[in-house]
């Protein structure tokens, strides 16, 4: 009975991890900018790797290897936030501007007066 409960918990946490890894990959492919891709990628690091490592820690029933998993998940979370800060700071320093949504310009040659800005 306890084995069934623990295995169900492991499968649930691992599926949450796989979902966040898929979302992170989708964001990395589809989003338009370095900063937004970084936003998707850090989700992948913290929640995806964190939940899969926590699922394995539950599967190990928090023995010494399970505590290693918890320490590894904590290390990944700290490293992910630090590298995210470092990459975004470096990208801003070398002059990559954040992405802005383009306003549709139907007649780009003429100087129209009623330009809609959003």
């Amino acid at each position, binding site marked *: 009975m306890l084995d069934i409960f623990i295995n169900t918990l492991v499968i649930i946490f691992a599926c949450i991890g796989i979902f966040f890894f898929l979302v992170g990959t989708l964001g990395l492919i589809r989003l338009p900018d370095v900063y937004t891709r970084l936003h998707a990628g850090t989700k992948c690091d913290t929640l995806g790797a964190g939940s899969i490592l926590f699922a394995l820690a539950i599967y190990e029933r928090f023995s010494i*290897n399970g505590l290693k998993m918890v320490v590894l998940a904590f290390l990944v979370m700290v490293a992910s936030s630090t590298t995210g800060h470092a990459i975004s700071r470096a990208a801003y320093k070398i002059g990559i501007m954040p992405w802005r949504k383009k306003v549709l310009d139907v007649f780009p040659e003429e100087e129209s007066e009623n330009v809609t800005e959003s």
Partner: protein
Amino acid sequence: MQNFFLAVGLILVTNAFICLFRAIIGPTLPDRIVAINIVGTKTLVILVLIAYIFGQHMYIDTAFVYALLNFIVTVAVARYLETGGLPSA
């Protein structure tokens, strides 16, 4: 339970190859760094899963080494981009 871990590992390997697509076509250098960072995190999780698929717990310590190496590589490349060379101080 080992078959489930094998399925999770295969899904993550497929995801890592999709992330390498961004690392190849990325227009700027920080895009490639982000993609390689995510591939490194997936490698770490796959190594921990390999420890349970094959029943060899040595790979967990290898995953620790990969986590530290991934962190140091990313911070070093970001620092290199920011200063444009080796840090003087």
